[in-house]
């Protein structure tokens, strides 16, 4: 018994115990998957925007998350189209054709202009350089119906981790952030003014600075005047 303790002490001398050593069976070459829940303010507003629409069409730019499909479907009785833009970015990185990304994103969506009620942009713009971000933002503005809304998350701090985040809706006021490996890291975080310029055809309806170091922003397309 005393032997075991002294061994522990011996290893203690070699250096501090790292958190997560006990789970070392996981392949260390793989980016660790983390999962943390944070409150959200903008999601409720996004839902409220769409609750009056009849069978609204939502465009989700993240990866497919079953919980989200179920959540939005049950809350809004909507149509959801999942268009994983992160996968597009990874494809372009793999092919070494990142310079073609703006052109690709400009023609990426097949939906008719003004046909989408809501867009879940999540934080995908953080992974794009300025020309690609502008191309995507312009395409999204064109897709959105008058009075439609767009939910975007923007990092307020430069983070070097090469991971994407799946935002899993737990309920109207909670999102679970689940990271997964990415081929591209976040680009320089966008300033508030930059974001507003990107979506110059939309108006900022709500903006929340969250403790998760994300800015949640809800944009709305101005309604047509009669």
């Amino acid at each position, binding site marked *: 018994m005393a032997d075991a303790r002294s061994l522990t002490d011996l290893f203690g001398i070699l250096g501090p115990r790292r958190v997560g050593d006990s789970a070392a069976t996981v392949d260390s070459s793989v980016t660790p998957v983390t999962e943390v829940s944070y409150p959200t303010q903008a999601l409720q507003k996004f839902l409220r925007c769409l609750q009056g629409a009849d*069978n609204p069409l939502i465009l989700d730019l993240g990866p497919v998350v079953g919980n989200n499909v179920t959540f939005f479907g049950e809350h809004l009785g909507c149509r959801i189209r999942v268009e994983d833009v992160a996968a597009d970015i990874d494809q372009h990185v793999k092919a070494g054709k990142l310079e073609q990304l703006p052109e690709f994103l400009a023609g990426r969506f097949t939906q008719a202009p003004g046909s989408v009620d809501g867009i879940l942009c999540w934080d995908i713009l953080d992974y794009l350089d300025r020309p690609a971000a502008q191309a995507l933002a312009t395409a999204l503005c064109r897709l959105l119906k008058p009075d439609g809304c767009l939910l975007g998350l923007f990092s307020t701090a430069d983070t070097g981790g090469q991971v994407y985040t799946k935002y899993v809706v737990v309920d109207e006021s909670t999102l679970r952030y689940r990271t997964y490996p990415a081929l591209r890291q976040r680009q320089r975080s966008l300033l508030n003014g930059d974001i507003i310029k990107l979506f110059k055809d939309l108006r900022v*309806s709500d903006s929340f600075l969250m403790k998760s170091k994300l800015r949640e922003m809800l944009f709305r397309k101005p309604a047509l005047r009669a």
Partner: protein
Amino acid sequence: MWKRDESVKPATPPAQTPAATPSAPVAAAPAASEPRTQLGRDNVNIGKSIIIKGELSGSEDLTIEGHVEGRIDLKDNVLTIGPNGKIKAEVFAKAVVVLGEVTGNVTASEKVDIRDNGSVDGDIASPRVAIAEGAHFRGAVDMQRAGAKAQAKPAGPAPGSAAPGPGQPQTQKVGA
């Protein structure tokens, strides 16, 4: 000292039981031993080696482990696409459970359930849709509810949002 080995032995035989019974006979065995009325519903299997091209319709629950191309119509029954099943078809059923691959649109009056490792390339129309972690899905989901819109809250800007101009934040909250 050797007693430990003996105590381990009894744990092994139960593991052989499921291995000795392939999936198709398992489905057939209870049907033979129990009367169909007790089962309450029939379940038919299309085995791994079966390939069907054309229209498949019926009034029994169906499990497909083989290949089907064309159209599947089981409007009042449950369709299960097994892990080996490969479907290239328009699918209509009461409920659809996907463990294999589906290419084509899926319409269910009750539920579509894409399980882990299941794959759907096509649009889904159903009031309830469940997509498991690890499942593949590419397409659109339509979960329109009948008559639910009557109770919906009116759309429009939040209270106190007196139409700010483009680019002007309506509210700004920090530290939420």
